[in-house]
């Protein structure tokens, strides 16, 4: 579904991605793990078009999207949940959701799509008129995911959905991601610091080190890989 080959991305003179190859098949959950500064978020931003790839190809459904502007990419069916949630804190929850629907036929199906989001995250329905900034961190993350779902994506890019959230809510959010994938058939590409949770959830995983893909394999294989355990799962301490 998504085929990334030899992608290099720069911030000014600094190279963040050094020829990344990643493949995401239809219906999969794929996790990308790696340490701080490895280039995980950059890769997601490059897929969604917010950053531009200097070289390489990003093919989505047989179409090269590496030179498209972000709004066209969202139109094709890739929605991003950016790192740190980035909800519009002074707008209401409903406004946030409506903004997510700005691409999808200009929000014609808002009520129907919103209902699906409320089914996923019932708490949002009770908070519709509250400002986004007054939600708790976990609720904000739910709003960010719900907002991205409003564009009816076929593929969801999630950037660190567990960042700064209470453990109990993390479980709930991961359950929803699984639900989005299994029930709604949305392909998920997930970037996480919480490697254990991500790999447990994912069908396949990639390990990104210094802008290079270092390892790849099924979620289970990576979980049991001693190098991954030592570096990302604190397995060495046991």
């Amino acid at each position, binding site marked *: 579904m998504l085929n990334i080959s030899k992608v290099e991305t720069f911030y000014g003179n600094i190279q963040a991605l050094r020829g990344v190859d990643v493949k995401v098949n239809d219906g999969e959950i794929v996790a990308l793990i790696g340490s701080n500064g490895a280039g995980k978020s950059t890769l997601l931003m490059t897929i969604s078009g*917010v950053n531009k790839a200097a070289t390489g190809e990003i093919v989505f459904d047989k179409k090269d999207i590496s030179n498209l502007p972000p709004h066209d990419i969202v139109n094709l069916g890739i929605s991003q*949940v950016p790192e740190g949630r980035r909800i519009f804190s002074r707008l209401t929850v409903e406004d946030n959701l409506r903004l997510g629907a700005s691409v999808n036929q200009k929000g014609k199906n808002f009520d129907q799509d919103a209902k699906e989001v409320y089914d996923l995250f019932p708490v949002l329905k009770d908070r519709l008129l509250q400002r986004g900034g007054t939600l708790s961190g976990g609720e904000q993350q739910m709003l960010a995911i719900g907002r991205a779902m409003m564009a009816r994506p076929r593929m969801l890019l999630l950037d660190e959905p567990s960042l700064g959230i209470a453990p109990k809510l993390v479980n709930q959010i991961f359950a929803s991601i699984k639900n989005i994938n299994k029930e709604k058939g949305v392909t998920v590409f997930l970037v996480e610091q919480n490697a254990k949770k991500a790999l447990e959830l994912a069908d396949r995983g990639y390990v990104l080190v210094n802008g290079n893909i270092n390892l790849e394999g099924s979620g289970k294989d990576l979980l049991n890989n001693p190098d991954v355990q030592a570096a990302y799962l604190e397995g060495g301490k046991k």
Partner: protein
Amino acid sequence: MDKNFLQSSLKDSLFTGLIALALFGPIVGLRTVAVNEALVVQPKWLVVALIVAFCAVGRFFINIYTFKKDQRRGEPSSFGKAISNFLDTKGSQIALGAVIFSIIFPFLPFADRYWMDIAIMMMTYIMLGWGLNIVIGLAGLLDLGYVAFYAVGAYSYALFAIHFGWSFWICLPLAGLFAGMFGILLGFPVLRLRGDYLAIVTLAFGEMIRILLLNWYELTKGPDGLTGIPRPSFFGLPFKRYPDEGVETFHTFFGLEYSPMQRIIFLYYLILILALITNFFTIKIRRLPVGRAWEALREDEIACKSLGVNPRNTKLTAFAVGAMFGGFAGSFFATRQAFISPESFTFIESAIIVAIVVLGGMGSQTGVVLSTIFLIGLIEVFRDFESYRMVAFGGAMVLIMVFRPKGILAKRKPTITMVKEK
């Protein structure tokens, strides 16, 4: 009040006094006077002492009463909270009352020529404030050159009306269109800029337009300005005491005695309607996708991009729509004055409009009205003390920022209010 606090406040105000002394000592204290064809320095230490004392004591009171109380900085004071609450709960009634008051205003007994002129001027600034509020308050783009669009509107109205003889109602939308196009013209080069950088470029844009008007003599008559701009007519009925042969005028048509006030009252209603249209439009558009996108862009540009909001189109529409209302206000200004020159479109005008929006509390429509009444009213009250006007103006801004750091109406209602579903 503990001792430490008092001590630090005292120290702080002494320091303020020192700064005031360093500043005002040379500027105010040493005055050169020509005595017998020679320049003699005449010291005025008493005045300096008074100013320094005023600054130091003022700072002391600000310290005690606002900065170091048991509240976080930037939190509105309890008095401010009371005002906000009052306006929140009674907001719609107050707005309705204000509209009714402005409708009956010309017929109130004290509304003579002087008051009507002030009211028209205030309405113009309120309209400009509401127009700029779209750009600054909603889209979050700090535009310091808003007066450029006001000028474009005024000049395009004047040129169309003078050269083609078109009526006000044809020239008005054209002027708005032109100003909107200039808004897009400004928008394109600044698409990538934000914050301070954007402000600098818009400031330069405002100056460019003014200098262009000053130097393009063939079209704009430069510093001489454009004269003889046609007055608006009441749907074809002119306001004239002695009309041309065979032309029916407003007062003969309605069988009234001629009075110059009729035209003033008409102008007043014209600007009132234009301003209300601006306000109505802004309130409505905030609930439409494009208005929501403006506010989202103000909050977070990257999030906007990742949701598929096109930031280029969003910014350009914000500039264009804001500029359009500036253009409408400009054509009203031209037809009211019947004479325009680049003098009327200096940076200070932009600064006043920005001050109105910022002091009102960015994005608050009622705040714009309150701060206009406050600032323009203050300028008027001090009209007789010409030299102190700017001092009062500056002082008022400082006071508002000290007591209401986020603007007069910092709190804004959510865009959407809905009855909760059961």
